[in-house]
């Protein structure tokens, strides 16, 4: 599935995204520096009702936000593996704990941890089509395309 997303169209895209993603929890975001990974993740979090101050987790590695669901506070982990050297370091930073926490996880630079991501992960590929627009491709886990189309 491919979307053309402009800055103005971010909120509509976020709504569509959650409709498709349904109950999926772990999302890996691929795209070069400046592609807009953090910006799109922020829109997805806001769409879930996150009111925290949000930002890039490049330095902090894991950011936590809360959103309301059925009268309860639920967590979102926003992670960035950019600064981490190898999978050992990634595990030590607590990334694996988050992935298996059954909370929503957004992972930037997932290429650094291929073995930590199983088949249930939704892969999102972001590329620049122009300075104002991004192409966002969604790769849902195999076998699920039919049910979602």
């Amino acid at each position, binding site marked *: 599935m491919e979307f053309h997303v402009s800055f103005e169209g971010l909120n509509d895209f976020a709504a569509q995204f959650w409709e498709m993603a349904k109950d999926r929890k772990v999302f890996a975001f691929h795209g070069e520096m400046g592609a807009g990974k953090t910006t799109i993740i922020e829109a997805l979090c806001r769409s879930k009702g996150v009111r925290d101050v*949000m930002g890039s987790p490049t330095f902090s590695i894991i950011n936590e936000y809360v959103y309301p669901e059925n009268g309860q506070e639920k967590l979102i982990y926003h992670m960035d593996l950019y600064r981490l050297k190898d999978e050992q370091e990634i595990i030590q930073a*607590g990334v694996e704990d988050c992935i298996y926490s059954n909370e929503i996880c957004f992972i930037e630079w997932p290429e650094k941890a291929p073995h930590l991501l199983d088949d249930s992960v939704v892969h999102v590929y972001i590329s620049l089509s122009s300075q104002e627009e991004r192409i966002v491709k969604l790769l849902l886990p195999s076998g699920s395309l039919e049910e979602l189309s």
Partner: protein
Amino acid sequence: MEINQSKVTILGIESSCDETSASICRNGEILSNFIANQKVHEQYGGVVPELASRAHLQNIVPVIDIALQQAGVSLSSVDAIAFTQSPGLIGSLLVGSQFAKSLALSLNKPLISVHHMQAHVMANLIGVNKPSFPFLCLTVSGGHTQIVKVISTSEMQVIGETRDDAAGEAFDKSAKLLGLPYPGGPLIDKYAAEGNSKRFQFAEPQIEALDFSFSGIKTSILYFLQKETKKDPDFIKNNLSDICASIQAKIISILLKKLKKAALQTGIRELCLAGGVSANSGLRKSFQELCTNNNWKGYIPAFEYCTDNAAMIAITGYYRYISNEFSDLSVSASARAAWS
């Protein structure tokens, strides 16, 4: 529990991200401020971890030991233990918070939980040349960019902050786009010193009020470099100093425009810098110019108190101690950035 009021000695512990650090502060004066380094591992044995956050576990005992030794203070004469409670990487914060709680319990001394970002601001109260209240603080680091209105040692308000990347990250990622090693912020500063800052222009973020945005400038630089290297593959190499100077000038102007706006809006005439990016020579110079031109007073802490360190935790602990603001043992570490 003993509360000492005559000579107050605070042990500060910081472990929110990469650095494990401990500091001793007596009556507002920093006696030691030690950050874990390679030497600790050589002296105390064990493998040398690089960035692994849980390396804090290996570091914490020797680091506190060295901070006490350097200050010439025994653990029994410490009056309270201050630690970073939030925000940060939860695994890292837990090491410092659990250690601080255990120590407070075993020594029967009060515990003081400190917010890492408030501590960066409080670093301005170390030393003789201190701002008077109220003051404004621009905190700029790899993970944060905030303008804080500081009314007293315990009353602070974030009046502006970044909506995306931090200023330090903008420096580091720009450097990466230029092919410099990460984190390359200090290299941008170095090359910028020899360059023409007016040669290249980058997009101005459109963010209302006192907030910041730095992700747009990253994309603007990415586009600019793609376009120019298509024409000349050696464009970066041949123009490195001018590109660095132009990027640096842009980031600094974004920061200081908002700081100036905050000063004009609040009428506050005492301005401070804090955080690791305040080591940037261009920022220091432009900040001093801003203050001089407007007849405002400008303060920048010594560099060792700008990057992540425990002295800022200890000084905050000292002010909390004298105003009787303690935490109980039920306090827990939190990764979230909220102030209270």
